[in-house]
């Protein structure tokens, strides 16, 4: 390991312990690390935006390749900064409108397809699958679970009709299905959170203190 890496590991260990100290209570070490991170990551982002967007997409085409029309997005971008002053803030609506128009227009057909149509199509496919001659009893039951689950959960989200009578009972089933879904998410979330902690302890033990090395 070269010198800079060794120094780096010590710095990283100090910062890791500084953040962990928050578990006891808020303190200057935690605050120091937190503020340092804000500064360093802001700087990192500026670097990325400059070298990955401004330089190759605007400055190079404009000044070295002579593509004069790249002045348009550049000006539109600069107009965003009119927000910094109250009187001129309305001008920033122009570039914002340009971006929003494109982003929303793109979203409509694609989000509809991925999140709604494909999902309904997938559910209808389950019915077709059950019709097949060799569909086993298990497949039928499982597919019915999905179909009833999706339908009843959608009824639960359907607020245009009061949840009483049959609608109420179906939506109760829906909440039950949603609870199973949220439970599964919780189970996975426990694993996720613990993973992050394990990795930090692995770093402290094996990379910094070199246990078992």
């Amino acid at each position, binding site marked *: 390991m070269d010198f800079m890496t060794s120094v780096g590991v010590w710095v990283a260990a100090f910062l890791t312990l500084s953040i962990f100290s928050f578990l006891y209570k808020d303190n200057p070490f935690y605050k120091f690390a*937190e503020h340092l991170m*804000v500064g*360093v990551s802001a700087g990192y982002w500026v670097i990325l935006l400059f070298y990955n967007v401004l330089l190759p997409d605007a400055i190079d085409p404009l000044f070295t390749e002579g593509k004069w029309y790249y002045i348009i997005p550049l000006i539109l971008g600069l107009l965003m900064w009119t927000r910094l002053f109250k009187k001129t803030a309305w001008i920033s609506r122009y570039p914002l409108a340009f971006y929003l128009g494109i982003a929303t227009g793109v979203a*409509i057909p694609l*989000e509809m397809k991925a999140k709604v149509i494909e999902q*309904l199509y997938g559910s209808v496919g389950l019915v077709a699958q059950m019709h097949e001659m060799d569909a086993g009893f298990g497949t039928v039951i499982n597919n019915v679970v999905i179909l009833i689950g999706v339908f009843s959960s959608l009824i639960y989200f359907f607020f245009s009709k009061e949840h009483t009578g049959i609608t109420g009972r179906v939506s109760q089933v829906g909440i039950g299905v949603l609870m199973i879904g949220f439970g599964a998410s919780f189970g996975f979330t*426990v694993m996720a959170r613990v993973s992050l902690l394990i990795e930090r302890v692995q770093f402290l033990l094996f990379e910094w203190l070199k246990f078992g090395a």
Partner: protein
Amino acid sequence: MKRQIPLTIIFILGLFMVFQYFVPHETSEFLYEFIALDWPPIIGVFALALGIISLVRVSIKRVRTRDENWQYALVTLIGLAAMLTAGLPWFGGQTSPVVQWQFDFIMRPITATMFSLLAFFIASAAYRAFRARSVLATLLLLSAVIVMIRFFPMGPFTEPAAATADWVLNYPNLAAKRAILIGVGLGIVSTALKIILGVERSYMGRD
């Protein structure tokens, strides 16, 4: 001028993008590639920079006025300056080893540790709040525990436990998440339509 023109821009561009998806004509393809996909990131950079400008403004003000805890604002500014200096073209830009060093040994440990604190909080929350108060809460709890023990080596119970968890994930969980997904999808599409048609204008701010 202040409202009508932006609304018109959104309407025209929004409709163009929707139609472009269904009718990929040569001209529309050109406009799509050239303007819609190439320009917004350039414009966006300036919007993103706004956040950084205001961070610098606030930090400088805190240091100048010797605000409570102003020293930490100074730490932020020093961190920013250190990273920016390392990223100057003369030091190798974004691929400079000093930039990568600061990323690996400052940003990486702090961010990773900050999020690892959540492990402690979720353990404490499980202890204090995860109760089988009702049938629904019991369903939530059971499903969570089934998923949590799915990779435990438990002798003859290992296989059935894993199979049960797989079933929960692939059937009831799938149904719940699909219903949510359909709801989210319809929400995104209706919000997008509202923006294009000028019904939703809150992004414009007041005046």
